[in-house]
């Protein structure tokens, strides 16, 4: 399983109610259900992946996170998970607000555009960066709102949500992000993982 999923699973408490937004093929959902006794639901936009989830016995709703989160009442879930999709939304601000309305807490992960390889790419090649976590060309990428770990901190102040836990993931190494190491984590972290609350 992806190390990202292991970190997310470590953040989420046992026996809670969780919504996985953009749940993909249900790998994380299955893990949380079996290992942490989580009452888990998913939303997924791809019909094919919804089928995969159904075949795994997972409860998934086919839908678009940008529009279909409004069907859930306030605080329906203890956690809402959004794995590496914030940058693909037309309006990430509304999505974050919706996550925190539907869930008491949210776990958000972002591919870090501040990673040195991305910067190196742009600086020396002069073309839009293509890396392991960002494999697409500029014209076919779903990622229309890329941000860095540092940007996410600024974003939290701008639209007023609290970051309770912030972790940087590089290869398989996880480390805490704090004020004093933010510059380095923003340069070497491939992925930012955040536990946030209203």
């Amino acid at each position, binding site marked *: 399983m992806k190390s990202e999923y292991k970190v997310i699973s470590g953040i989420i408490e046992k026996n809670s*109610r969780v919504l996985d937004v953009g749940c993909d093929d249900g790998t994380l959902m299955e893990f949380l259900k079996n290992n942490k006794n989580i009452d888990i639901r998913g939303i997924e936009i791809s019909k094919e992946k*919804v089928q995969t989830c*159904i075949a*795994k*016995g*997972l409860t998934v709703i*086919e839908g678009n996170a940008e529009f279909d989160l409004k*069907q859930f009442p306030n605080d329906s879930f203890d956690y809402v998970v959004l794995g590496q999709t914030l940058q693909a939304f037309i309006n990430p601000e509304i999505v974050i607000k919706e996550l925190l309305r539907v869930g008491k807490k949210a776990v958000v992960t972002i591919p870090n555009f501040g990673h040195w390889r991305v910067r190196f790419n742009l600086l020396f090649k002069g073309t839009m960066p293509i890396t392991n976590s960002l494999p697409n060309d500029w014209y076919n990428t779903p990622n229309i709102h890329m941000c860095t770990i540092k940007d996410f901190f600024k974003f939290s102040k701008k639209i007023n949500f609290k970051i309770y836990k912030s972790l940087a993931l590089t290869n398989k190494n996880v480390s805490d992000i704090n004020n004093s190491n933010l510059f380095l984590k923003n340069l070497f972290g491939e992925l930012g993982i955040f536990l946030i609350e209203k």
Partner: protein
Amino acid sequence: MDYFDLVKQFDGNLSKAFEDTKTKFFIISFTSDWLYPTQENKDIVIALNAIGADVGFIEIESDKGHDSFLLDVPDFLKALKNFLDKSYIENNNEIRI
């Protein structure tokens, strides 16, 4: 069929019709079904989510209209089979415990 209105007896609130349910729901709609269009099926999903019910949803692409559910639509049959198989296994495990 068009005269049947479940919400009538529940003050226009569909969620109330399912209150305290322990059922596992799976709502399936078809793109070409004009009798029960996807949006109306989504309304059921919304009503069930409002009371925290266990509800899944998929829209199946089909050009066979309302009768799609009676005909050979592979995506539909696959989804239905997998849902029933998994739910049966889960249920049986619970009974054994």
